[in-house]
Each structure stands twice: as C-alpha cells, then as structure tokens.
C-alpha cells in the first residue's frame, strides 16, 4: 500500500495561554481503511497576475478522497493568490518574507467538471508550489 502522511503543528499566543495543536493523518482512498492514495501531481509554477488559471490540469476522479496542498512561495507579503472552487471564492494565500508565506491543505472534492481549483495572482508574479494526492484521474487524450 502506498503511504502518504500529512502532519501539522499549529501554535498561537492569541489566547491567554499558548495554544499548540499537533495532528497527523494517513491519507486513504475514499471509504477504505486499508488502501492509501496512490497517485500524485506535484509542481512549482509562476503565476502571472490578473488571469485565472486551473491549477490542476486533469480532473481527478470525482467525490473521492483527494488532498490538495498549495503554498505561496512569494517573498513579498503584498502578493497573494485567490482560491476559487466552482465559482465559490474560498480565500487568499499571501506571500511572506523568508518563505513564511501561506499554505493550505484541503480535501478536494472535484465533484464535477466545474470544480477545478482556480487561482488568480495579485500584486505580481506569484511563485506557487502545489501537490495533489489522489486515487485516479481522467487523462486528456492527445
């Protein structure tokens, strides 16, 4: 079985006592407890500002257990990318100095052909790293 593990550590001093949360999950195929995700796409791209792009070229099999990671590696904190899924604005990932820019890690439904993950850069050319872990995709015939 292929094994993909995603771990997070979250700390904050916004509360009266420091908060620290750690979690780890093994990414399984939908509805199974013994078979891990076994396919992936991984990329590092420059996104010029002003145009919306689908970050995933092929649509993974719908309604499965795909996981999507995206990080903004731009070093300018005023640069950001907007994330849109099926015409629904989700949020923004800002850049940051010393590679402290925002990242996200979400389960990605891809429930229909319109549910591609769309990103639009603002401020300038944003440097984006992304990885999609999934269990099947429909390739586009050449």
């Amino acid at each position: 079985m292929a094994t993909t593990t995603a771990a997070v550590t979250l700390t904050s001093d916004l509360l009266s006592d420091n908060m620290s949360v750690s979690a780890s999950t093994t990414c399984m195929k939908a509805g199974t407890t013994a078979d891990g995700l076994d396919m992936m796409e991984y990329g590092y791209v420059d996104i010029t500002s002003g145009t919306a792009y689908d970050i995933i070229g092929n649509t993974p099999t719908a309604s499965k257990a795909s996981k999507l990671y995206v990080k903004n590696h731009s070093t300018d904190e005023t640069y950001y990318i907007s994330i849109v899924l099926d015409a629904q604005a989700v949020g923004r990932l800002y850049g940051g100095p010393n590679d402290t820019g925002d990242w996200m890690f979400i389960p990605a439904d891809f429930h229909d052909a319109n549910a591609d993950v769309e990103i639009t850069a603002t401020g300038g050319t944003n440097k984006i790293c992304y990885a999609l872990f999934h269990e099947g995709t429909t390739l586009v015939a050449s």
Partner: protein
Amino acid sequence: MATTATISISSDIAPGFGGISASMTLTQAGTITDIDSTTGFQIRKLSAASVVDLVTMANELVEPEDSQAAKIYIRNIGYKDVIDKSVGVTIGVKSEPIGKLYGGDWMMMPLTCIDADDITATPETADTVVLEYVMFFEEA
C-alpha cells in the same frame, strides 16, 4: 511567538519524491503584522447526516474583516476514541462542497469571512462524529 502553522508531508507514491515541509506565519493581509483574532479552539459534535453551519460568519461575536487573510483548521477526531477512516464529514463554503474529512483527517484552508460564506459540515452518516476547529481572522 505569533501564530504559526507547519506542515510535513511524506509519501512513497512517487519514487524520488522528497516530501514537503513548510511553515507559515499567520499575518494580516498584505503585511507582516501578526493576525489578531481567533474564535479559540472549539469542538462540535454531530449526530445526523444533515448540513450544519460550523461557523456562521454573521454571528461571530467579533466581526471578521472580509476578504483578508483568515484561515481555519478543522479536524475530524471521531467519537470516544473511535476514528473511522471509512466515513467522513463534507466541509463546505456556503453551498459549495470543498471536500470530505475522513476520520483523523485535518485541513487548513483560507477563508473570505464574507457573511454569506459560512463554513458548513455534512456528516456522511448519522453516527456521532466530532470536529475540532479554530479560525484565525482579522477584526473588522
């Protein structure tokens, strides 16, 4: 110390893939100033296969600023130490499903915090499941 989040991903799917390790400091939009508000850490027990608002933006005691750098962390922690990876809870924004958190799965997602863009949760079954979550945002 600020608010920071670090992710580490390892995988043996693709030969030569060296994994991912990344950190972010949660800041206010377009600045290096630390983000200033949070809902605090919360849990929500769900026992029906119907949609509920996990976060109702218009009802937050501290009004979040729209379209800034807000983030939410959500994890499906199962129920009473039983974590079932075969069933999950679909997390959505407004009426749009984002994806399903199976038992033990977690997510970190940016948010618009626009009043209409509530965060929803829809369990796959009526079996009790608990979500833990915390939202970070800018005060309006």
